[in-house]
C-alpha cells in the first residue's frame, strides 16, 4: 500500500488507526458492485463516516475477496470489481453472448416496423435525429430489415421494411399483431404530427443533442479488463 493510513485523521494522537469496520466493508462492496465506472477512492471516502480511511477499507476488501469468484482491481484511477481472471474464459466459453442492438437500432427498427415501407429520410424525420452510419446496416445484417423497393420521388430512394425473420424473432404471426398505432396513440403517442419535411434545424439539432448510444462502441466480450 502506497497510502499512509491514519496519517491525516490522527496525526498527533498516539492512538492506533481505527480498524476497518465490517460496516465500511459492506458499503464499499455495495458501492463497487453497483457502480458502472471505476470508483475513485475519494468517492468512497465521501460515503464513509468521518475518520474512516477509504484506502484501508479498499485494501481490506481486496484481501477479503482474494480467492473468491470476484476480485477487486485497480483500474484507471479507481477501483472496480470484476469476475476472477481465471473464471472469465469459462464463463464466456460456455455462454455465447447474445448481441445487443443499440438503442438507436431498436428505435430505427420500431420506426421501420410501423411505417414500412419507409425511406431513410423518412426514418430520420420520424425519429427526429439523423441516422448514423451503420444503424441500418446492423439491422440488415441481423436479418430484421430488407429493401422493399424504390419510392417514386426524385432520387428514387430505397424503401425499407421488416423481414419474415423479424416476425419470427418477435413471435408475431403477422405485422397486424404489432400493437396498433392508434392504441399507442391512445397511450399518449403521436398526439401531434411532426413537421414532416426535414428542416435544416432538425438536422442541426442532433449536434446539440447527440445520442450517446450512437457513439458507444459495440459490446466487446473480449474487451474487458483493459
Amino acid at each position, binding site marked *: 500500500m502506497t497510502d499512509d493510513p491514519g496519517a491525516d485523521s490522527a496525526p498527533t494522537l498516539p492512538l492506533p488507526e481505527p480498524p476497518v469496520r465490517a460496516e465500511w466493508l459492506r458499503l464499499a462492496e455495495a458501492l463497487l458492485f453497483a457502480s458502472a465506472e471505476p470508483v475513485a477512492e475519494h468517492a468512497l471516502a465521501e460515503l464513509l463516516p468521518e475518520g474512516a480511511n477509504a484506502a484501508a477499507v479498499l485494501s481490506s476488501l481486496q484481501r477479503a475477496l482474494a480467492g473468491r469468484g470476484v476480485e477487486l482491481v485497480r483500474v484507471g484511477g479507481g477501483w472496480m470489481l470484476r469476475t476472477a481472471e481465471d473464471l472469465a474464459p469459462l464463463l464466456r466459453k460456455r455462454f455465447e453472448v*447474445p448481441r445487443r442492438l443499440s438503442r438507436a437500432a431498436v428505435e430505427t427498427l420500431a*420506426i421501420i*416496423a*410501423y411505417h414500412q415501407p419507409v425511406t431513410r429520410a423518412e426514418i430520420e424525420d420520424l425519429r427526429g435525429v439523423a441516422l448514423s452510419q451503420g444503424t441500418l446496416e446492423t439491422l440488415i445484417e441481423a436479418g430484421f430489415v430488407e429493401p422493399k423497393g424504390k419510392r417514386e420521388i426524385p432520387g428514387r430512394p430505397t424503401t425499407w421494411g421488416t423481414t419474415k425473420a423479424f416476425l419470427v424473432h418477435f413471435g408475431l404471426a403477422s405485422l397486424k399483431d404489432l400493437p396498433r398505432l392508434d392504441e399507442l396513440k391512445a397511450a399518449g403517442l403521436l398526439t401531434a404530427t411532426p413537421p414532416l419535411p426535414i428542416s435544416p434545424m432538425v438536422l442541426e439539432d442532433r449536434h446539440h443533442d447527440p445520442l450517446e448510444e450512437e457513439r458507444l462502441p459495440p459490446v466487446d466480450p473480449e474487451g474487458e479488463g483493459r
Partner: protein
Amino acid sequence: MTREDAEAGSESPPACPAPLTVSFEGWEGPLDLLLELARAQKVDLARLSVLLLAEQYLDWIARARALDLEIAADYLVMAAWLAYLKSRLLLPPAERPADEPSPEAAAEALAWQLRRLEAMREAGAALMARVRLGVDVWPRGAPEARIERVPGGWAVSLADLIAGYVAARRRALGKRRYAPPPLDLMSVQDALARLVRLLRVVPDWAVLTRFLPPNLAPGLPTRAGLASMLGAGLELAKGRTVALRQDEPFGPIWIKARTEPEPEV
C-alpha cells in the same frame, strides 16, 4: 364562499363545512371521487351505505354547481344515476314495480366496483412500498455479459421495440408532446365509444347533447360533435342497443339504452 366563514377574518383557519373541498382538481373521474367520499364514511367498504354515498355525491355536485364549477359529463351522468338509485332505494319494497330488479343489487354492484378499485389502489401502494431496484437496491453496475441465450441471438424484445418507438416518436415530437391536443373534430368512432361508455350509467331517457364532452369549443367543434353523436346514436339504434326519439320537429333528440340480455357464450 357561501358560508359565514367568508367574514370570519383572515387569522382563523377557514372552517371546512365538508370533508372535501369542492374542486375538480385531482379527481380521476366519478369513481375516484366516490371512493374518496366512501372513505369519509369511515367504515369498511364492505359495509358501505350506498344511500349515504349517493347523498354525499349529489350534495357534492350541488355545491360544485353552486360555485359554478365546470362539471364534466361523466360526473353528471353518475349524479343522474345515483339520484335514480337513491329514489329506488328509498321506495319501500312493497311499492316498487314488480318487474324491477332490486336497487340493492345495483347498489352492491357499485360498492363492489369501489372495493375493487380500492383493492387495486392498495395493491399499487404495496408494490411501491416494496424494496425496488434502482430505488432501494441496485444491480450490478458494470455487467460483463448477458448470461441467458436469447432465441435468434439478438437480445431485443417486443417490449424493447415498443419502448424504442415511444422514445423515438416522443423525441421527434419534441416539445409539442405536452401541448394540448389539437382541435380535433369528434369522429363518429369517438362518439360511439363515448356513448357506449356513458350509456352504461344513464338510467333513463336523456338528451343526446348531454353526452357531448365538456369544453367543446362553440361553432364547428360542437356542431361536428353533435353530428357525430347523432351518427353514433343512429348506429347503435340500428344495432338495437339504444332507442332514439324526437318529440317534435327540430326538438331535442332523446336517447336511452335498451335492455338486452347478455348473449350467452
